[in-house]
């Protein structure tokens, strides 16, 4: 029997977050060539979300019409996901491994009585079991977990899987089953969302490229060198703790043990020495580039490519070169 897979669509602007498309690609592979893949989307903005799912070959879409679920706590949504998974007879629920997906996964697993793993970078069946690989210990090691018991909830790490190329279909749409949500779960209220202003680059945790600056930039006003390179690359901006502790940039940009863990395709460390507490937050990046005027800096031991030199000279040259190549 081909295993049926349900992909939970993550709303983003008018459509879906890019990571949802990546999860759909994984779903097609795990469901087998013509295995059933279903999608779940929320009320507002669902028309374009449904169209997007169709473009990636999802033939059946369940739509949550209960406005109470949207903007309520993840608890209310988890119940809806569990009910939809049962309706489509899924063996696997896939989510994108963003804040949204990772936060939901544990709750869905309990509500639907499934085994769960977050942030998978590789997935394959092993008979009835599912093998999921992911970086652990801040990228210092990789663990493969065996999920057992026939029902699985998995979030996929952003950028770990390609966006699928499938013949587009026009999906069937049905209402997702609505169950009673305990009043306690409807207590929390979202007061607002400050959309990340366009032009300020992607969110740090989900970015394909991250450019981070450290104490080597010497003063808050110089940090714009880092930001300009990031902007030329369409990258997110990060920082070492030296920078956030000094208040040069907000703590939300801090990468490392006590900040965020990032794993982009490309990580550029500028004026960062490479303390272990910083390294554990970025070591599973695919390619690491370091720019530092101390050729003995530890960052060069984990980097793939290094430029030993003065960041005040190198970074503006790099920004100019990126702009030239990109024609911007």
């Amino acid at each position: 029997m081909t295993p049926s897979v349900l992909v939970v669509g993550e709303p983003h602007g008018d459509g879906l977050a890019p990571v949802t498309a990546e999860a759909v690609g994984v779903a097609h592979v795990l469901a087998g060539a013509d295995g059933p893949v279903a999608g779940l989307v929320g009320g507002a903005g669902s028309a374009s979300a449904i169209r997007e799912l169709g473009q990636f070959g999802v033939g059946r879409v369940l739509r949550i019409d209960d406005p109470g679920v949207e903007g309520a706590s993840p608890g209310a949504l988890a119940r809806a996901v569990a009910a939809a998974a049962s309706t489509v007879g899924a063996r696997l629920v896939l989510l994108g491994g963003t804040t949204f997906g990772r936060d939901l996964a544990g709750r869905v697993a309990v509500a639907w009585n499934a085994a769960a793993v977050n942030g998978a970078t590789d997935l394959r069946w092993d008979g009835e079991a599912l093998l999921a690989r992911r970086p652990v210990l801040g990228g210092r090691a990789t663990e493969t977990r065996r999920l057992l018991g026939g029902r699985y909830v998995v979030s996929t790490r952003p950028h770990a899987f390609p966006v699928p190329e499938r013949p587009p279909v026009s999906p069937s749409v049905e209402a997702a089953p609505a169950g009673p949500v305990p009043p306690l779960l409807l207590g929390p209220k979202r007061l607002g969302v400050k959309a990340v202003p366009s032009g300020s680059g992607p969110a740090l945790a989900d970015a394909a490229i991250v450019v981070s600056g450290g104490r080597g930039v010497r003063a808050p006003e110089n940090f714009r060198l880092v930001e300009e390179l990031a902007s030329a690359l369409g990258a997110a901006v990060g920082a070492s703790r030296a920078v956030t502790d000094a208040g040069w940039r907000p703590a939300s940009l801090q990468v490392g043990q006590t900040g965020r863990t990032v794993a982009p395709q490309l990580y550029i460390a500028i004026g960062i020495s490479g303390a272990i507490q910083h390294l554990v937050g970025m070591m599973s990046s695919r390619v690491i580039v370091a720019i530092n005027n101390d050729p003995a800096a530890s960052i060069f031991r984990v980097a793939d490519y290094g430029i030993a030199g003065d960041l005040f000279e190198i970074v503006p040259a790099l920004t100019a070169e990126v702009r030239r190549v990109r024609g911007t």
Partner: protein
Amino acid sequence: MEIVVCLKPVPDAETRARPLPDGTRFDPEGVKFVLAGYDESAVEQALLLKEAIPGSAVHAISLGARSRTDEVLRAAIALGCDSATAIEASPAAFEDPIAVAAGLRAAIEGLPHDLVLLGKQSGDEEEGLVPGALGELLGLPHFGFVVDLRWDATSQRLRFGRSTEAGEESWEAPLPCVIGLQQAWNDPRTAKLPAILKSRRAPIATVRAPTGPPEGPTSEPARFELPPPRTGAKMIEYRTPAEAATKLVRILSEEAKVFP
């Protein structure tokens, strides 16, 4: 406010991770387990709330091998937590994050709890599954990846932020609630020597969680691998900054294929 703070002993960041000879999992032999930096921050958050709201108490709980939990719980007492509970079980029962949540529930249900706080766990292995699983098991709302948690006395609600793909969200939630914190944005206090000495004699309560492998769906470690050692950066030779820039951009697009 009765606050339960869940603490997890994690391998020290300086630890050299290595697999067991059978390659299935991490070898804990000789590894130092410590109160993680982000758990220190969760304790700090709990203590700040306690200080802001008269009549509050903070209960520290920790799950795992006794030698590891007691160390972490005593550190929490020395910082100012009011009680400590160790959750004991066979290691096999806790190799799955959902089972971990079930173990935490066993202790939390025996304690008064308006707010259950967890630190960020990404340096370790669970990547944010536990707060949601725990919320569902307790039948309480939960939020993971929370920043800037505050108590609003006027509305008698928690206020906090979360940064998601959609942007910076702001939320308010009534108690009871389970909160997983995203990062250490506060400056954790350090324990004073007399408090550390006193914590050595502090009582630690014991809860025995369900032992044996959990029934139904679960997960187990199958393989633990170290990445091939990084051989060090390929250094770019250059005479002028412009040449360095041209060479790097070419390498990134042609060799590393990450750009443009």
